[in-house]
């Protein structure tokens, strides 16, 4: 019985295959029409492709041409400035300006900034500061003698893809100063004991301080190699000399000890270094052409 069922299945399969073959032979044969390639089409390079690359393609050195194209493309996105991009010499005159508006202390400093890769910028600052104040309704005159200060630090330029004449940066500084000050015209009264007119002076009190600054700033080219810069600083004193006679009110280069904020305005003269290696903008390239 089992053999009979198997024979029946095989026979049915054969009949079905035969029918399918006959039906396929009855249908018309599919036409194959080959497409003729357009042999007269001119392959044009993308607009703006340098002639050198086109010549390399034409000469058959496609690998070199592609490598050059990739390099040019990256340069557009990520312009690479040389290690020594620019040297900026600056004059911080923010305090001088504020003195004209009644500020009782002033400082002026010269700073040198080396712009490396248009990103990292080591900075050296040297300056002088002084103060003189006799506050109203108070019992003293504070005279901070003209004293030097120094700062070392670095900036990081966020606009490293742009031209160095426009910069938005953050930075840090370590500052130090050794200075002297006088406290004069001191008048102290002790009404309970009837002690009036007790004057004293503290002259030539020496002190020193070490402080740190975090800053954010802008630098904008104004004309030729000249630029203006604005800086906002947040600073704090790390260490200072402890005197039995008290703490100084003014620290050259730091400012007064009230508050942690300060600002500066700089006039810069920029000296481009390795200018021939600076990336040239496409627009300028066109203008040259």
């Amino acid at each position, binding site marked *: 019985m089992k053999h009979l069922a198997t024979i029946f299945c095989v026979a049915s399969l054969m009949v079905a295959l035969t029918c399918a073959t006959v039906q396929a032979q009855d249908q018309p044969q599919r036409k194959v029409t080959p497409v003729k390639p357009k042999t007269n089409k001119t392959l044009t390079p993308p607009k703006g492709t340098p002639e050198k690359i086109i010549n390399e393609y034409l000469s058959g050195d496609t690998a070199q041409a592609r490598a050059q194209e990739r390099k040019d493309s990256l340069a557009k996105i990520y312009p690479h400035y040389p290690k020594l991009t620019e040297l900026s010499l600056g004059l911080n005159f923010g305090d001088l300006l504020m003195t004209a508006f009644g500020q009782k202390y002033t400082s002026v400093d010269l700073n040198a900034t080396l712009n490396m890769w248009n990103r990292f910028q080591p900075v050296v600052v040297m300056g002088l500061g002084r103060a003189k104040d006799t506050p109203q309704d108070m*019992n003293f005159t504070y005279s901070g003698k003209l004293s030097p200060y120094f700062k070392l630090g670095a900036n990081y330029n966020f606009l490293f893809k742009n031209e160095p004449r426009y910069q938005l940066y953050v930075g840090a500084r370590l500052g130090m100063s050794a200075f002297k000050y006088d406290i004069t015209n001191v008048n*102290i009264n002790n009404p309970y004991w009837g002690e009036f007119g007790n004057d004293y002076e503290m002259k030539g009190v020496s002190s020193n301080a070490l402080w740190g600054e975090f800053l954010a700033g*802008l630098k904008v080219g104004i004309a030729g190699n000249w630029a203006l810069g*604005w800086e*906002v600083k947040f600073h704090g004193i790390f260490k200072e000399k402890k005197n039995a*006679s*008290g703490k100084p009110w003014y620290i050259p280069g730091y400012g007064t*000890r*009230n508050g942690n904020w300060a600002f500066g305005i700089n006039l810069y003269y920029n000296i481009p270094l390795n200018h021939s290696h600076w990336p040239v903008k496409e627009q300028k390239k066109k203008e040259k052409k």
Partner: protein
Amino acid sequence: MTSKIKYCACAAVIALVAMVSCNNDNCMGNSTGIPLAAFYEGDKQISLSDITVYGIGAPNDSAVIRNATASQVYLPLRITEPKCQYVFDYNIDGIENDTITFDYDIIPYFESRECGAMYNFDIKEYSYTQHFIDSIAIPNPSITNSDVVTIKIFM
């Protein structure tokens, strides 16, 4: 040119924020170094009623407090001499007055622009009678303008 204007505007805003942020501290302490004495019984600060405290040699017999109830009292030190004495009159029958004597160094001190120049004191020695006072403690002999208790008088 437009970008220049944008940069300048940003700079102006930053400078303005910086200027607004500049704050002036006020003087939080006294205008000179004055010791503040407080009365204690054990660890607990107490008030004494009808007490008079005066300095020996003060002009016109003036008192720091007179017949008042007080838990603490300022004792200004002399600035022309390195020594002064205070008398504590309790106005209690049968209890004699106590006298405290301070010997100290007078130290010219510049506190800040807001508080000004003043004198601080460094108490070298002190002595007292023990009619009503049990003992006196001066944990920190340096007297500044800080408004804190520097002399603890235990009754």
